[in-house]
Structure formats: C-alpha cells, structure tokens
C-alpha cells in the first residue's frame, strides 16, 4: 500500500500540470506545409494590476485596471506580429485581416468571442460559414488563433513586477471545418520599470508594445511548436 502511494505521488510530481494533447502527426505535418491565417484577439483591452503592499503590521492587496481600448489597435498590430513569427518558423502565414474582406472581420471576431461560453469556459470554435468560404477562396487551410484574456501585472513590495498575457492557442482546420487543437498558452515576463508598473503605459504604451512583440516571437519559436508537435527544424 505504502509502495503504491509513493509511486502515485512520484507520478503526480513527474506529470505536473495537465497539458492539451498535441496535433496528430498527420495534421501537424499538413499544417507545416499549408497556408495559414494568423489571428490574435485580446478580449479585455486593459491591464489589470494587482499589488501586495507591505504595511509592517499587515499586508494590503490592491487592484487597479488601465483600459487602453480605443488608444491601441492591439488586435491588428499583434496579429501582424504573430503572422511574422509564424512565418519565421517556416509556416506559410498571412494575417487574418489580409485574407478576409473588411465586413467579414467583424464576423470572425464574433466567431472568436463565441469560443468562450456564458459560464466562462471554452467552447470549440464553430466557424461562421461566410468567413469559412472567404478563407477557402483565399486558399487558407488553417487558422491559428491566439485568444488572450487581458494583461495581468503582479507586484509585491520590494520585487520587480511580473507581467503575463494568459492566452488560449487554437488551431482551426478550415477544409475539414473542425477545431483541431486548443490549449493554454502563457506569455509574459519582466518589463524594466523604475518605480511603478504603470510606467509601461507611458508614450502610448511603448514598453508594453515592445514586450508583447518579444513575447509573441519567443513563444511562437519555442512554446508553439512544442504545444502543437510541429517539427520546425525540417
């Protein structure tokens, strides 16, 4: 019994957190040689700051949000960056807004929004038929989507702030009209500031934009091929 329990604990430790199954080798191989549309969508165009403030006799948790909607077209800019990153690992990628007529981009956004159910849980993507037809007409075989929640900044008195952009990576097979993959995709890191995490908002969010581009490139080159089971070396 004790030996079984030890084995169970060791297995749980070795396994760590559960990860989404990779694409089948057949689909992964097909994706590597297909035309891909890249998309990034940020659900909450804001930064949520959380801070633990040391007050000697107690600690305070404080929160603040900064809404940048209307001041930064984050979806377009990061979609272009994501497409470039996918191209740099060998995929034939184009930004989604380059392959969809302007009116249909809004339909695509609704398709993305529908991947989060009313209860907050993820729902498999069901592609709008007009969007799918337009993608097929442009010879797009797969859509690779990064759906991000919102920026999160964690700060503890005396320590550098940590920024994250929790995201969901999703692969949609346009020809078969089925979602092939969804899995958690974490991006983030430290952004150099002198005193306040909110310095990332200065000069039109300059530091946040630079950091986001770096995270996208790094994660696309490392975590994405690992998550999907792509052989980017060949």
């Amino acid at each position, binding site marked *: 019994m004790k030996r079984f329990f030890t084995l169970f604990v060791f297995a749980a430790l070795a396994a760590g957190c559960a990860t989404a199954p990779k694409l089948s080798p057949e689909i992964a191989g097909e994706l590597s040689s297909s035309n891909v549309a890249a998309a990034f969508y940020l659900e909450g165009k*804001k*930064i949520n*700051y*959380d*801070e*633990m*403030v*040391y*007050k*000697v*006799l*107690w*600690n*305070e*948790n*404080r*929160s*603040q*949000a*900064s*809404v*940048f*909607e*209307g*001041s930064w077209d984050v979806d377009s800019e990061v979609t272009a960056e994501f497409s470039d990153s996918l191209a740099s690992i060998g995929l034939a990628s184009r930004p989604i807004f380059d392959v969809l007529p302007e009116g249909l981009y809004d339909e695509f956004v609704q398709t993305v929004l529908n991947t989060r159910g009313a209860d907050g849980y993820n729902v498999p993507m069901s592609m709008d038929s007009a969007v799918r037809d337009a993608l097929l007409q442009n010879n797009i075989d797969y859509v690779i989507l990064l759906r991000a929640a919102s920026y999160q*900044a964690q*700060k503890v*008195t*005396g320590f550098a702030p940590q920024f994250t952009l929790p995201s969901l990576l999703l692969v949609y097979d346009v020809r078969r009209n089925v979602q092939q993959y969804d899995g958690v995709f974490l991006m983030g890191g430290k952004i150099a500031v002198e*005193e*306040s*995490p*909110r*310095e990332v*908002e*200065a*000069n*039109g969010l300059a530091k946040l934009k630079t950091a986001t581009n770096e995270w996208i490139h790094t994660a696309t080159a490392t975590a994405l091929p690992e998550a999907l089971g792509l052989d980017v070396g060949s």
Partner: protein
Amino acid sequence: MARMMLALAFVAGTSLVTGCASTIGNTADIGQVTFEVGKTNKNEVANTLGFPQNRVVQDGTEYWGYRGKPELTGLVYALPSGPNTVTTYQATKIRTEPLQMDSVDVIYAFDDNGTLIGIHEPAK
C-alpha cells in the same frame, strides 16, 4: 543624545505605522492635475495620469473614468493566538461586477477628435 534617540524612535514609529505605499495608482494625483477643456487631448491625459479605470463611448463622446487610488481588495494580518503561536488571517473582497462610472472619482469627456470637452466629479 536624548534628542537623537527621540528622533530615531519617531522615525521608527512613523515607518511602523505607514509601511510602504502602493505603486499601481495613477501616475499623477487626480486632485493635483489641471487639464484645459477645449485644448487638452486624450494622449496628454493618458501621459499624465495613465490610462483610465473605465471607458465608455456614447453618442460620439468618449468618457474616461479615474479612481483616486487603487482599490483595496484584501488584507493579510497576523495575531497572537497563544503564548508561542501566531495565526494569520486574510480578508478578501472580490469584485463581481465591472467598475461603473458612478464609482469613479473623476470623469473626462472627449469629442471624436480626442479633445477634452468636459470634466465631471461625481462625488461633488
């Protein structure tokens, strides 16, 4: 020497009471900034205060709402619970609804060119 000790005790006492300040508030005090209606634009407000805590667009007017300081969402404190033991307590407030404009301290209104057209302080 006695004065020196008194000063040290005062500094130590003050720091015990105050601790550290939050660093996630607006980048300037909303009570100390001056913006000119008809002249100041959105970028100048964002560069002075940071971005707002709430944003609403209605009938071509964009409203930015700011709180005076970050919201207190929790406390962690320790109290003696025996001769050699201390118990840690935590009180957390979870926001279940998004921040509404009526719970901000200042609202700035901009026209569709991004020029400031009004300032409103709901509490006043």
